[in-house]
């Protein structure tokens, strides 16, 4: 067993994947020689050579677009967007090609490719370094969207993503890249895409979160459980396709639902989950489902960032309202 933090678990997943499968190639801005600005690809160029791990030109559309060509021609590209806020120049390639090549060619050509992006706030960064854009991908048919919240899950999910026959958007909560360590097996293992994880069971309320919000939500739940409430926490892990069954079963048991996310509120991911609950467990609902989210503003620079996304106090206060409704 290794003991790794989340970013180390990702490096390790890339390492074992490159070792196991010669068709895996890894590239992106600063990904080669220096090993990426977060060091996710550290050591890979030295170990696997410049052909399989390299610095791309500074052009996201080229990174994704050339990756699509490689994937069609037998490679498994795992590319990095330096920050998710910089994926926009490559968005055309993601939506109009990566997501559609299989359908367009009726299965003749496919794009087994992973697009890794650090995402989310909380790191006191410059503009465009804190985006939570999961909806843009999750609303696009043809893509899968995965977000791990622990080192163990990060490795298992990334390996699943690499083995997946379709393009996977792999969003990494950079705020918790180095937040904590966990035992992680040395060898290859996978965690299925499309399966949520019940982090803890509970009877009075179902709360769904993912990425960095899982830990915040856990802390809020601890406060509330001390007050005598029993709360079920689900780590969604896969944003698309959603594990409907797990969510609905949970709400059928608890009768109450809340979702916590960093993305903007309006037309955000929480709306989809609440709608799914409406569709699958309406008669079980004892209180209006609630979303605890960032506000619909531009993500503030560091001196204002604390106003933006949910923190433990806000989550606690809001969850209490659902429980006490």
């Amino acid at each position, binding site marked *: 067993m290794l003991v790794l933090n989340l970013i180390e678990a990702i490096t390790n997943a890339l390492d074992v994947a490159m070792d196991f499968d010669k068709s895996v190639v890894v590239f992106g801005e600063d990904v080669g020689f220096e090993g990426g600005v977060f060091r996710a690809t550290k050591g890979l160029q030295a170990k696997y050579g410049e052909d399989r791990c390299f610095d791309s030109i500074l052009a996201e559309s080229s990174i994704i677009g050339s990756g699509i*060509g*490689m994937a069609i021609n037998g490679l498994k590209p795992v590319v990095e967007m330096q920050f998710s806020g910089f994926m926009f120049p490559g968005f055309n390639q993601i939506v109009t090609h990566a997501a559609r090549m299989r359908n367009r060619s009726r299965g003749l050509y496919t794009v087994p490719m992973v697009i890794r992006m650090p995402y989310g706030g909380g790191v006191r960064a410059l503009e465009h370094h804190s985006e939570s854009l999961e909806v843009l991908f999750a609303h696009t048919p043809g893509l899968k969207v995965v977000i791990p919240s622990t080192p163990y899950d990060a490795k298992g999910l990334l390996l699943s993503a690499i083995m997946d026959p379709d393009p996977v958007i792999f969003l990494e909560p950079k705020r918790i890249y180095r937040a904590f360590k966990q035992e992680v097996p040395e060898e290859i293992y996978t965690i299925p895409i499309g399966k949520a994880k019940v982090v803890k069971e509970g009877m009075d309320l179902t709360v769904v979160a993912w990425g960095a919000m899982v830990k915040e939500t856990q802390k809020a739940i601890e406060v509330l459980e001390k007050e005598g409430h029993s709360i079920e926490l689900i780590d969604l892990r896969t944003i698309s396709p*959603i594990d409907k069954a797990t969510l609905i079963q949970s709400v059928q048991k608890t009768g109450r639902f809340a979702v916590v996310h960093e993305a903007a509120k309006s037309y955000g991911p929480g709306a989809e989950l609440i709608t799914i609950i409406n569709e699958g467990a309406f008669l079980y609902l004892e209180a209006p489902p609630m979303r605890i989210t960032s506000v619909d503003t531009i993500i503030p620079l560091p001196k204002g960032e604390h106003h933006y996304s949910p923190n433990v106090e806000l989550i606690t206060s809001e969850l209490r309202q659902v429980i006490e409704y």
Partner: protein
Amino acid sequence: MFLENANPLVDEMIQILNPKGEVVKPEWMPELSKEVLLKMYKTMRLSRIIDEKTLQYQRQGRMLTYAPNLGQEATQVGSAAAIRQTDWVAPSFRELGVWLYKGAPLYNIFLYWFGNEMGMKMSEDVRILPISVPIASQMQHATGLAYASRLKGEDDVAVAYVGDGGTSQGDFHEALNFASVKNTANVFIIQNNQFAISTRRAIQSKTRTMAQKALGYSMPGIQVDGNDVFAMYAVTKEAVDRARRGEGPTLIEAYTYRLGAHTTSDDPTVYREESEVEEWRKKDPLDRFRIYLYSQGFWSEAEEEAYVKAQSEFVKETFESVEQSGMTPLEDVFDYVYAEKTPILEAQYQERKAFYAKEGK
């Protein structure tokens, strides 16, 4: 021969066969067997027939949108003939000649334009990516195709086609730069047909040639008479061979003209004079090739007539069978979004199916 010292800032465009069907540069004339010459000519002729027929079907209301290639047959077939069967092609949407030359069944091509994705599913051996509508985006795929070939130890070249309009997109720039930096086995062919829908070539770029854009990537760039099938063949062949030897990418500008409409939904009389089109008809790529073949005794009026007749019949029959092909079944819409339907897609599929059942459809 053409590429080493090419200077697209000043060079005249490469021409071997002039509009009268005369070989004006015998020293450049590629060595092509009669068999290959006839395959090239027949493909161009077939392409022309298809374009004429589809126009007719369109007028009869039997056709959806279709992008004719009229006038660009030499650009397409001349270049296609210079690439190997295992070489990759990343096309835009106006490359009928390339598809046909590389062995795509006309049935599939018609099926696609008829509004059924199944048309793009053909033998892997054709090695052409599906039609790519987002302008210039396919060029990026070509770089990745070539990169992968090299990594796998294969010497296949990847050829991308793009229009004069497409040179304005950021993807054009990025793909050329990637290929240059990574020295990938790519050939980029600009079909400069003078128009992007109604927008003239001069509006896309102030440069003398489109080929000179290669200078921004330290890559050979060359302008070729795109209506001259031999020039297109010879230059593409040199570029492809060069790429295959690992000597890097090339940018070729095929100078040609779109004689037809942009697509069947376009009315070119809104933005250009018939007299301009007339001038270009005199440079028809097909006419000059046929004159050459006649002059060599490789082809005769009788053969021409018989071929056109037979192929017209073939096109007609193929189109009619596509017309009979019916609607896309519901499952096809769901089956290719992912390798396996997600539970949500499965549920949506069942819902739609149940709805059809209820409605008695």
